[in-house]
């Protein structure tokens, strides 16, 4: 079993306050790992450590190692844009750029490869196909992306992230702003995508983690309390806090 991504003793401090501490997690290639935990436990911060979006926050210090394909990101001096091309991210609220559907998906491609027009067309179509949105937007490629429904926008930004062919895709509560039907679509999409990509899903929704994730990690107060195959974690939690959380006693 190869590891697409691995963290070793990952920690995060914001203005001397410890947000995350000693998190060592393995993400096997082609798997879905859910990260769950109560509000404020550091789930989103953890996700942002993986593609270094933490640099946008003032006064942060990131500790420990992140290994992408076995290579230490920090020590190898990999530039952040390169890291972020290989580790894509989808946010809580759909955030398409103001502009057409086509331009949104082409954004990353234009940054990195600058392909010709026909190749660009092909790759934009392929990316939209992969998220199952092609039938809905094939005639609307020149329309404003903000005119799509929220659910469509979220799938569009997933397509935008996939267009640059990342190895890992980070999903930060991707369905929390969506209606139930759009949520089901996103979950089905996650299951489809895991053959090609390694997915890390932060979610507030315990049932969602149980439905789509192969592995689940439980964060509590900035620490990793439990990490196991989802089936085992949800049927037989080892820690009292985990059990309380998944049975809905707090959160």
């Amino acid at each position: 079993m190869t590891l697409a991504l691995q963290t070793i003793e990952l920690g995060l401090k914001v203005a001397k306050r410890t947000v995350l501490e000693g998190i060592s997690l393995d993400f096997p290639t082609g798997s879905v790992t859910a990260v769950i935990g109560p509000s404020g436990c550091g789930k989103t911060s953890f996700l942002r450590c993986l593609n270094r979006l933490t640099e946008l926050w003032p006064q942060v210090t990131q500790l420990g190692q992140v290994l992408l394909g076995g290579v230490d990101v920090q020590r190898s001096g990999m530039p952040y844009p390169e890291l972020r091309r290989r580790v894509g991210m989808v946010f809580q609220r759909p955030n398409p750029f103001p502009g057409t559907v086509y331009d949104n998906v082409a954004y990353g491609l234009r940054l990195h490869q600058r392909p010709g027009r026909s190749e660009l067309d092909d790759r934009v179509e392929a990316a939209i196909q992969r998220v199952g949105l092609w039938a809905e937007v094939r005639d609307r490629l020149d329309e404003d992306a903000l005119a799509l429904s929220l659910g469509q926008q979220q799938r569009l930004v997933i397509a935008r992230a996939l267009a640059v062919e990342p190895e890992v895709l980070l999903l930060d509560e991707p369905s929390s702003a969506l209606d139930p039907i759009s949520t089901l679509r996103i979950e089905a999409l996650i299951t489809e995508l895991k053959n090609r990509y390694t997915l890390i899903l932060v979610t507030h929704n315990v049932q969602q983690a149980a439905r789509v994730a192969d592995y689940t990690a439980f964060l509590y107060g900035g620490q990793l309390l439990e990490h196991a195959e989802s089936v085992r974690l949800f049927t037989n939690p080892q820690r009292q806090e985990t059990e309380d959380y998944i049975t809905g006693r707090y959160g």
Partner: protein
Amino acid sequence: MIGRSLERLAGGALALLLGAFALITAAVVYQGIAALVPPPLLQLQLHGGEQVNGLLLRETETELELLLEVRAAKPSWRRLQRSQIVHRSAPESACLLHASDGRIRLHVDCTTAAAAADPETWTRSYPNAGGTLALQRWWQAARDFLLAPVRPDGQGGIGSALVSTLVLVLLMTVLVVPLGIGVALYLAEYAQDTRLTRALRLTVANLAAVPPVVFGLFGLGLLVHVFGSQLDQWLFAERLPSPTFATGGLLWASLVLALLTLPVVVVACEQGLQRVPMRLREASLALGATRSETVLRVLLPAARPALLTAFILAVARASAEVAPLLLVGAVRYAARLPVSSEAPFVHLERPFMHLGYRVLDLATSSAGGHFALQQAFACALVLLLLVLALNGAAIAARFRLRARYRDLGTP
């Protein structure tokens, strides 16, 4: 109870503001248009048999003020008490002869031999005529006001001043927009939030409160006298001692205006950039864009409405300024326009005429009297229309962009 009276007080303040604004606009429009319509030519019979002909410039309850003629730039006036007048008429055939140097002669009846003896080259108009002749008269006056060549005493058409003002404001925009966006980008995107940055930001904002004439003084002292002389020594040595850039001119004036409007532009641009939602920045960075790619491809396009607003503010502010320009290049009379069809097309070193200065000049000149004041209002009206046209274009562009970015929502 207190809430109710506060509401009335606030409403009253608003009404006062709107009223004052309406009054100013109405005065400028009314007086400005009146200046273009020549006053009637009156034929007055006085007690004692004397007859007086003149253009009616002002009329009050008790007296009349008449312009009798203008001889070699010297107008002659006459003030009459109403009680002196026996009979008053405005004959249709009366005409006014206008020479290109400003001389004016009046005739009660244009068909007489005396009138026919006047030079052919003088413009003839019929101030009392009705119908199409009246329209013609108005058209003629408006055309003269705009297009007549300007004379060395500063009188004449305002065309030169209008074109120069437009060129000045456009040049100022070309200078201030990149500079302002640059400073705003640095403050909004690159600068860390330190005490130094905060002090810098405060300084920029406070520059807006420096009296404009101080900027003019700065322009004269540093730009004209130091940079200008240096430039002359390097590039135009053969023309010395007559100065090229070491005297007020278009370049220095537009630079002074650019510096003057810079704080406004910086503050407006920075606020616009900060209003671009964080999630758009994150989306771009998360796709592997560098910081500068994000600025160029996402941030600046999304902030375009705000950048246009900054441009509108700058233009409004710059077209209203006169004081600093008096020190760095605005003149009463410039023989040549600062633009021409010969290379380099825009002549940065030339002094220029300015609508604002023209208003000041006309309103304070003693020669023209009431007539000159009306002309000043007409100038002010043209200046207002110019600002309105420039801003109108920018506002239209902003509306179109707004429609496109309406769904961006809050940061």
